């Protein structure tokens, strides 16, 4: 498709940077602050755009593996078992074309199960779920830190790879 999303974003950035922002009255503090952040947000989106699909697949694939491990041997009361069944249903009905939507649904299922096992799971499964969810959450957090590295908030950006390296495995 022409113009591509990258070109359309680039053109918006040019217009903002070269025409709109210089025309803002420096006394308009809110407009000055917001325009700078809009520019930064659009620039970050432009950097992320080529990797969005690979990134979402990475997150979805890990969430699927985690979810499958969580519901392998459920042992507990109805609340935990229902939450496990809901995850099992998600695993059979995932939409391969929308990895982000799949990830969000799986994350919701995993969160629901995390609360449910606190209520009525048997101790062994409870411990398994908690350990597995924490390990997944830390891997997911690592991916998210890479995704948002460009925002400049990370306390340890030096320990993170760049987005291209993170996504390379999926693209290969």
């Amino acid at each position, binding site marked *: 498709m022409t113009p591509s999303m990258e070109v359309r974003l680039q053109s918006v950035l040019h217009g903002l940077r070269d025409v709109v922002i210089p025309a803002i009255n420096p*006394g*308009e*503090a*809110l407009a000055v*602050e*917001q325009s700078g*952040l*809009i520019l*930064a*947000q659009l620039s970050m989106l432009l950097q992320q755009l080529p990797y969005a699909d690979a990134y979402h697949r990475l997150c979805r694939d890990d969430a699927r593996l985690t979810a499958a491990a969580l519901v392998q041997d459920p042992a507990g009361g109805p609340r935990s078992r229902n939450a496990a069944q809901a995850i099992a249903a998600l695993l059979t009905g995932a939409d391969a074309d929308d990895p982000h939507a799949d990830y*969000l649904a799986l*994350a*919701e299922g*995993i*969160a*629901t199960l*995390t*609360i449910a096992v*606190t209520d009525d799971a048997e101790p062994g499964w409870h411990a398994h779920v*908690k*350990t597995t*969810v*924490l390990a*997944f*959450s*830390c891997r*997911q*957090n*690592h991916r*998210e*830190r890479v*995704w*948002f590295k460009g*925002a*400049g*908030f*990370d*306390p*340890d950006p030096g320990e993170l790879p760049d987005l291209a390296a993170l996504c390379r495995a999926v693209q290969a």
Partner: protein
Amino acid sequence: MAQLEQKPDLAPDRRNNFEPHLVAMLDAKQARQGKGGYKPREAQDVSERLNRLLVAHGVQQQAHNVRRMGGGASKEQFLFDLVGPGGGTDERLVLRMDPLEGIIETCRAREAQVIEAIGGTVPAPSVAFVDADGRHMGQPAMITRFVRGDTKPRDATSGPSGVGIVIGERASVALIPQYLNNLVAIHGFDFAAAALSTYAEPQAGTTEAALWQLNFWERVLEDDAVEASPLLTYTACWLRERAPVCTAPVLLHGDYRLGNFMFDQDTLEMTAVLDWELAHIGDFHEDVSYSLEPLFCSRDAQGQPLVASMMPVRAFLDGYSERSGREIDPKLLHWYHVLNSFKLSVMNFASGVRAARDGTNHQSAFLGFLSACHVGLSGTLCRLLEGEAA
């Protein structure tokens, strides 16, 4: 001070099991969600409303030269001059006004109460007017007298909301004792004798102080999150399973960090502790651990964190203990550190994202950008929780 009646036979409803004033506040927020966006206020409109407020308070002066202030992540802020009948400026005032939603939901009446109470104990802005229900300003508002000073050295740079400020050695030497002394003074404040009718005291010797905080932020997560977070859900369960007893509740600032105090550039004297909107009564470890959050620390040459960009963690903890006479319990410090990272993550992952998405704040672009900081805060959570599990 409201005292809660103990009802041991009732199964506590987590969604409503915290300070009654804050339950009502979150109920009101929930009721207005999804009912339209928010347009930033224009100076002319603010000026007209201010003058109506002044008349209602029987004030002879008028609001002139109303202009927006930069900074601030949660409230609309305007500076204005109070001008008398003779035309001269009598006083400079600061207006803090709520947008519909932001990264935190707080109460102007409650903030004004604690500022007025604490004024003689630590330097704080003095309150001139409160429009608690927004009948004059259109939204709840508080007006304080202008305080001279800055939140960072003139030559320092910083990110949004005071994050990322680096303070030099000269300023640090002067500010460290004041930073510690003010924190100790807040915790030593006799809140029971103060006029704090919108506050409730958790019962000493129970887990109430810890659970009220957890219940509040868990409800905010439930009400505001636009997507699920297994990590935050896991963290809430972790915190609940380990909620500690608070032996002696104290007044807490709730957001005590670099960026939330002002100082004179020449004398390096602290002129005000700011942003009291998250103040509450609870365990002193909560305020102490808040300063340890990496988002609010800079790094020294060896990469070690500097609390408030001024002192190593050990110096901060020892300095607090020496001055307060309180012994810091590492387990409690750890629990409250997890709670604070959870609370800060909820603000940005849930409330900030919702407000940015729905356009219910005056600076949606800012909130949309700032919310990315939740991944660093969640990174802190992962380190703290993994350390516990190891």
